[in-house]
């Protein structure tokens, strides 16, 4: 553990934590505009978090310790995951940080505990959400593994920090196949953050909800932590896509100026991506649960194609 890494941990994690709720509201705003509404303020997510933070936590009498530790655990796991994805500068990394496989497992831990806590309160909705999440995860996990494997194969390393050091050095995408991977990564963002066509984050409709069903029993401060963790997960995944496809501005050494530029660039690029996600969500209808594997298959197809093209061509 060196000083540069410590500084990185503070700046990178702090920056991601600070801006994550902004992108949640931005997507809501874009969706509202496409529907001809004015939409909430861009700071609404921050207001919501503050409001929830001040509220009392209510636990169901049936619930166990899982319900109590999950919000902290999820946020903790995702804060560790932020160390894996540099958005401001690339530090000298201690061993193990930035490894893709560890990153995937961190996301899996978060998913596992969310599903457990959905079951924990003993409500029917929570159980339904957990069962849906787990059955869809069984399909989406191979897709994620193969997408990240393709990324590792193209950039010849399993470490995110090394990957982004490679991509940050070039102005056009390092390899044409990275365009293919980006499509898979985009689909993974949509799936992992529970957006249309997979899940609808705006409703509490029994037929469609997956993510919302599991956090239905959460309240007050715990709900705030879970919402924040969700927003951070979205920002991390967006950062992976941005750093692969458009890494301009990512600093490889830390100076004050380069830090400011990197922050500004990331904010602009991520806002554009958030706008794109909002438009994508507005332009497509929610899919039937049984058609979802076909949607994941698209991501699988493009990733497998990437590996095929890289190996043979």
């Amino acid at each position: 553990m060196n000083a540069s890494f410590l500084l990185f941990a503070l700046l990178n994690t702090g920056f991601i934590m600070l801006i994550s709720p902004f992108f949640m509201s931005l997507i809501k705003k874009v969706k509202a505009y496409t529907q001809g509404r004015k939409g909430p303020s861009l700071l609404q997510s921050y207001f919501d978090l503050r409001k929830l933070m001040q509220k009392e936590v209510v636990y169901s009498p049936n619930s166990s310790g899982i319900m109590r530790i999950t919000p902290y655990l999820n946020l903790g796991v995702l804060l560790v995951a932020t160390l894996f994805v540099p958005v401001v500068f690339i530090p000298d990394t201690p061993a193990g940080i930035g490894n893709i496989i560890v990153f995937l497992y961190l996301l899996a831990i978060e998913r596992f505990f969310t599903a457990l806590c959905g079951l924990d309160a003993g409500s029917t909705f929570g159980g339904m959400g957990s069962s849906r999440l787990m059955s869809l995860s069984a399909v989406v996990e191979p897709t994620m593994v193969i997408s990240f494997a393709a990324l590792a194969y193209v950039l010849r390393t399993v470490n995110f920090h090394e990957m982004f050091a490679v991509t940050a050095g070039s102005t056009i995408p390092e390899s044409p196949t990275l365009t293919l991977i980006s499509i898979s990564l985009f689909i993974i963002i949509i799936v992992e953050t529970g957006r249309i066509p997979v899940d609808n984050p705006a409703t509490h409709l029994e037929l469609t909800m997956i993510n919302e069903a599991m956090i239905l029993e959460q309240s007050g401060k715990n709900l705030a932590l879970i919402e924040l963790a969700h927003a951070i997960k979205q920002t991390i995944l967006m950062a992976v896509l941005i750093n692969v496809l458009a890494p301009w501005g990512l600093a490889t050494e830390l100076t004050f100026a380069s830090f400011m530029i990197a922050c500004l660039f990331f904010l602009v690029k991520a806002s554009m991506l958030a706008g794109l996600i909002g438009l994508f969500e507005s332009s497509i209808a929610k899919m039937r649960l049984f058609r979802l594997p076909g949607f994941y298959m698209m991501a699988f197809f493009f990733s497998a194609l990437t590996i095929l093209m890289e190996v043979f061509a």
Partner: protein
Amino acid sequence: MISSFLADPTFLEDMVRILFVFVLITAALILSTRNIASLLTVYAVQSLLLVLIASSLYFIEGNRTLLAIAALTLVSKVLLIPIFINIIGEKIKISRDLKFNYLEPTPSLLVSMGLILLAYVFLSGFFNEFILSKLFFMGAVIGLSLTLMGMLVIFSRRKVITKVIGYLTMENGVLLFGIFVADLPFIIEILIVIDLMILVLLTTILAIGLDSTSEEYHQRLQTLKIWSGGEEQ
């Protein structure tokens, strides 16, 4: 600025590689899109990608025929044929092809992955003696797999109009293969395009069956006693 990019062959080769990737994406979309208007748009985009590939190749190689092929493709496949099929589509009032034969989109994407691998293995055995540059070899592989994927579309789609698009995709594959490997004489390219026009025309003449699946079409022909299909009583 632009002319300096156009004179740089490595930049152009990278462009062609990116275009290959997009061609494959359109092929995947043609396999799985259900809405006919979007299907036509995807086909037109695919043809436009071929135009771009042919013109970038002209800047690399300097062969005039490539430019002529690009122009011909632009006029016929990007503009005329999609507009024409669109008019037919409006007349027969079908907007979607929902059902699939034998293979749903998900398995057919898997199968097409296998087809790409097959095309690669087959061609690498075939072109062993020739020394093709990597780019040209990849063009050949993608051309052949596009042809096979078009065949898969004809095989798995039910409505005649989508089958026609499958056939057109196959022809795009042949064109791509021709650009990169065989160096077809230009006259043959023209003949193929004329063939395509006549195919699309014929399908309109057969419009009696265009709004139906092939099986229903067969039945209708039998009811109308136009053709008894060799099952004379």
